[in-house]
């Protein structure tokens, strides 16, 4: 109490001053984000400028192109810029899409289960389990995938005729879309569950009770009333999971097979056994080339694509959550 008599929070810690100091820090952080966007775009520009829209298109072998680009930077010859990222983008779309669809379905059922149907002991077990799954480092998922899941897929699931049928194009070893999608699902589903359960718990009880009073059973009430009312939370959780999936680099660098190859669903179901490499692991795998100027620009161009997709997802999630707040939820 004595210190209140002393002018401890006198002119040095006056309210105006504290507010200005905190405001300056906030502006600094906002500025840091803007600087990051600017830096990534400036560094990426040469790669985009030399390729135009063909950057996003198919054509040639991506790995050969990347090699040529980094070699040209080291040899001091004229820089090579040609880069067509379609196989990497396609792989990102397939893996992210697959994982988000699987994750959305399982997360929705699990969060409905936790909030509504599970007996107390079960939800008391499931909640820590979900939190644990969300906190396991991605490199551990990657290690388990490489040492357990990949050999299983390579030896048990893929048959010899299947390996022979694509032998001239690509070798099937177990590093595959399937492995990547399965592990990524386990990584992003807990994230969705935590946001979905928050949304489901915030649904106004009166709405649910009204439906129950009309004689609708609990299962249908949950899906027709509670899940629909929690839609903003479901959208928010899903887009955040998409952002996480797009940005996942290390686990996918270990499991996706690391080949610049675009699996084609038109070839039949075998495409899920084919290796590929999404955008983010491409940066991880080529990080040694950062000193080569054209390779540096190319990697920053990939980073720019990731940054913008992720930023778009965060923005959408933020909008959805704001909508949620407006309805009194969350």
């Amino acid at each position, binding site marked *: 109490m004595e210190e209140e008599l002393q002018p*401890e929070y006198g002119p040095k810690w006056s309210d105006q001053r504290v507010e200005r100091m905190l405001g300056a820090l906030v502006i600094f952080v906002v500025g840091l984000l803007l600087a990051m966007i600017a830096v990534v775009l400036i560094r990426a520009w040469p790669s985009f400028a030399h390729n135009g829209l063909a950057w996003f298109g198919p054509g040639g072998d991506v790995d050969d192109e990347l090699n040529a680009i980094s070699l040209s930077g080291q040899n001091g010859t004229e820089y090579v810029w040609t880069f067509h990222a379609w196989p990497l983008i396609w792989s990102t779309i397939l893996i992210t899409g697959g994982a988000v669809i699987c994750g959305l379905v399982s997360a929705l059922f699990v969060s409905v289960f936790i909030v509504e*149907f599970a007996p107390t002991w079960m939800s008391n077990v499931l909640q820590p389990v979900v939190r644990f799954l969300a*906190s396991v480092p991605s490199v551990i998922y990657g290690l388990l995938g490489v040492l357990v899941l990949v050999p299983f897929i390579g030896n048990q699931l893929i048959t010899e005729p299947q390996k022979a049928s694509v032998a001239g194009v690509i070798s099937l070893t177990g590093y595959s879309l399937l492995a990547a999608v399965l592990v990524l699902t386990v990584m992003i589903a807990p994230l969705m569950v935590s946001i979905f359960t928050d949304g489901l718990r915030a649904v106004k009880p009166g709405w649910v009770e009204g439906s129950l009073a009309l004689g609708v059973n609990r299962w249908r009430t949950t899906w027709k009333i509670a899940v629909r009312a929690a839609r903003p939370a479901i959208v928010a959780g899903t887009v955040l999971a998409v952002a*996480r999936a797009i940005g996942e680099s290390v686990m996918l660098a*270990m499991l996706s097979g690391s080949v610049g190859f675009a699996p084609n669903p038109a070839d039949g179901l075998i495409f899920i056994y084919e290796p590929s490499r999404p955008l*983010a692991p491409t940066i991880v795998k080529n990080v040694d080339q950062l000193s080569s100027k054209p390779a540096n620009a190319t990697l920053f161009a990939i980073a720019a694509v*990731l940054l913008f997709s992720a930023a778009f997802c*965060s923005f959408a999630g933020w909008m959805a959550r704001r909508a949620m707040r407006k309805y009194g939820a969350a």
Partner: protein
Amino acid sequence: MAPSVATPPPERPQAAPPQGKAPTKAVEGSSTWSMLDRIGLAFCWALGLLFCAIAVAIVVYLFLQGVKFLKLDQLTTPAATGFSETETGGFSDALIGTIIVAVMGISLALPVGIAIAVWLVEYGRPAPLARVTELTIEAIAGIPSIVLALFGTVIFSSTALGFLSRSNEGVVFGRSFFAAAAMLSLVALPLVVASTRQGLESIPRHVREASYAVGKTKAATIRRILLPTARPQVATGMILGLGRIIGDTAIILVLLGATQNFAPVEGAVFPFDYLRGAGTTLTNFVYEASPTGNLNQPQKAYAAAFVLLLMVLGLNAAADLVHRRARKAGTWSH
């Protein structure tokens, strides 16, 4: 733990006499539902049990492998070059590196995160700046860590920041504990902000008014009343942030180094020679020691992953403990 078959919850007999045994649950059972609804419920159980099974499998499997391959001397000997797994030493540098990075990263993220949360909840003027700040925090949370890492190479390779890493004839190396920790603090920042904010927002308005009424300034109220009250949430945010920092690999790979040993900078004062040099962490070690990495020593990768998992489990337990204590202490939050 959980029953092995995915059965729906115990069903109530349909025509139970009302004066018989009292109904165990206040809600209806699933016995009156249509087949499709019951299948859906069974699916819920199956998925719930699957989640538990995956978690148990990860813990048990890594535990078994860890017990098999982890030798205590691995925790005390640094990595060495050699041909077989017996010659290549342990991963003490990685273990220490993880701790260094965690301490440095969180000690940067915590004050900044608390300050941002305080500003958002207690000041938040002008309103547009508050919206922009919220969005910025969301964006930082969503940015892939590999992009943060590339951004870090640009910042820390600049000559002005050469004193934070190794530099050679004007070329700045840009890989150091400082660089990695600075970028990792951005990874932890959104968690600290979100958690602290939640804590501050759950404090009722009358608490602040009571404090102003006895003549405290706003700054004193924040420092003496609000932040101590929100301490459990701040701690939770810190623990979550720590978990994210020790689990991150991409930033370490790009900004800390490709070595498995400390590489202190010669001629610098003691802690700074190590902090300015390259190094490694457990995540980096696991990545490099996995069959897809450069070392390919799966046994040691299992051992290191086991140590890492123990740290994560410890942090989870700590978060639970903080949560439960706060609840018991009966703060306004829950």
